[in-house]
């Protein structure tokens, strides 16, 4: 017969029953908390759609934001607040484009460098710096862009400053995704190119980048989705503006900034939901497209 040494206290059977009960309870708790963890996203999306859909119409995309006076008048007359978020959309658009122009080429070049120099000391230092940059709070990047651009370059709040802060945010993400993408390309493809005597820059342009295009795109889209929703750095750099502007050295608005302005103005508070819905839809769409591209690659 099995000679399991008995426990010093209590019976084996009782012990087993307690353990079985604990086991079931623990599993129930895990399931419960996991489901609770999924509720915030549902609640948020639900509220955004419920409250935001009311204000979304054609004007939403084509008119600039109303000012406080227009909003107040409309409310007192029981009318729908006029206007839309065009100035925010165009501002976000221009700043993101400029940020991309700055961050993407530099990021890809650094990513290529890291891919090539793998385990070397300098490459390790670069990676560490990139990681520190990635972890830096966005407001601190706003301070940097304020001092560098607002103070010394454009002498005033500007779209360029906003773009600068967004570019610094995008850079580490692009660097990392570039290196990761290239690492997944089989070395034999590169070697085949080298064996044909193809010069290095052609390998990069004709082999490396085209083969890794979907990975690079995924990385770019994810970096974009990250910066489009940012508010804090823009408060210190772009400031906001009531009109559509493509002037890089003048203040400009952005969708998150508009939301912040609406939130702070009692007359325009109701506009926050539609703008938030738009912003979240945009960010999630970018995320989804990025994930689709990544999945197709597999």
């Amino acid at each position: 017969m099995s000679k399991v040494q008995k426990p010093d206290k209590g019976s084996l059977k009782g012990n087993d029953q307690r353990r079985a009960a604990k086991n079931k309870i623990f599993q129930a708790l895990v399931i419960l908390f996991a489901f609770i963890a999924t509720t915030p996203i549902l609640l948020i999306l639900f509220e955004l759609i419920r409250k935001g859909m009311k204000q979304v119409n054609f004007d939403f995309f084509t008119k600039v934001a109303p000012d406080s006076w227009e909003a107040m008048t409309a409310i007192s007359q029981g009318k729908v607040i006029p206007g839309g978020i065009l100035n925010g959309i165009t501002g976000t658009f221009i700043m993101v484009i400029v940020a991309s122009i700055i961050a993407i080429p530099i990021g890809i070049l650094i990513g290529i460098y890291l891919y090539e120099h793998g385990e070397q000391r300098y490459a390790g230092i670069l990676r560490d710096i990139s990681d520190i940059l990635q972890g830096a709070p966005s407001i601190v990047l706003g301070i940097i862009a304020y001092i560098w651009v607002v103070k010394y370059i454009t002498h005033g709040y500007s779209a360029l400053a906003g773009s600068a802060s967004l570019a610094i945010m995008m850079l580490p993400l692009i660097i990392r995704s570039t290196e990761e993408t290239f690492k997944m390309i089989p070395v034999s493809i590169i070697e085949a190119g080298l064996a044909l005597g193809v010069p290095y820059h052609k390998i990069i342009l004709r082999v490396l980048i085209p083969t890794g295009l979907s990975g690079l795109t995924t990385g770019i889209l994810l970096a974009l989705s990250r910066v489009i929703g940012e508010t804090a750095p823009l408060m210190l750099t772009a400031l906001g503006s009531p009109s559509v502007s493509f002037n890089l050295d003048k203040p400009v608005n952005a969708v998150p900034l508009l939301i912040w302005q609406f939130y702070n103005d009692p007359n325009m508070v109701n506009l926050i939901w539609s703008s938030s819905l738009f912003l979240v839809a945009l960010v999630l769409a970018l995320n989804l497209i990025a994930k689709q591209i990544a999945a197709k690659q597999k």
Partner: protein
Amino acid sequence: MNKLIIEKKPILRIQNLFVSYEKDKYAIADVSVDIKKNIITAIMGPSGCGKSSLLRALNRMHELYPKIETRGKIFLNDKDISKLSNIELRRKIGMVFQSPNPFPSMSIYDNVIAGYKLNGIRQKKAKRDEIVEKSLKDVALWNEVKDALYKKGNFLSGGQQQRLCIARALAFQPDVILLDEPASALDPVSTSKIENLLVKLKKEYTIVLVTHNMAQAARISDYSMFMYLGELIEYGKTKDLFTNPSNKRTEEYLTGKFG
């Protein structure tokens, strides 16, 4: 009639066992066999014949994977094992795996006593020390590790780690020890140490050993079974099976025609 071999009572009875991983695909198809006490029974067969599946059915490991379906009855000492809780069953039937797997986050001492610790059975230190020493002595590892009991086992060689795993299984002094190709990842010297150990252990324990190494089965097992495509083809005293197999398939396997 060989009167020197006394008929030993079966400790494990397997009746009409079916195990399937996928619908209508049987890893084990209608196997019935009795395992005798205090001997080494070897389960042999080519890859995919179901030998590991049979072993794992004995301590209900298949229950970990909801997709696997099991049918049929297994009796341990005449008790239907499905009537026991799987916790109870696994204290009576221990298992040693193919690649040595001592718990990496535990010391050697804690590994041996892991069964008790995991089962929440608290004992005085003196008793625990006793169990650890006996188990390690039983597997001839005591002298090699007695000064390093509280270190983690990753400095041990493969063979020593596997003996540690056997010690861990022995700590409960189970009725049956199941071993799934325990020496297949080890060098010949360690393998023979393990084989000698099993022969020594069968006095106190019943050993069921899955092996793809026919010579090993011939060396140390008392009874052997040959499986093919989920079916039990032949079962009997090892000597008889090897020298005079009654089934053609068995003969083909033993002479190396396949597997």
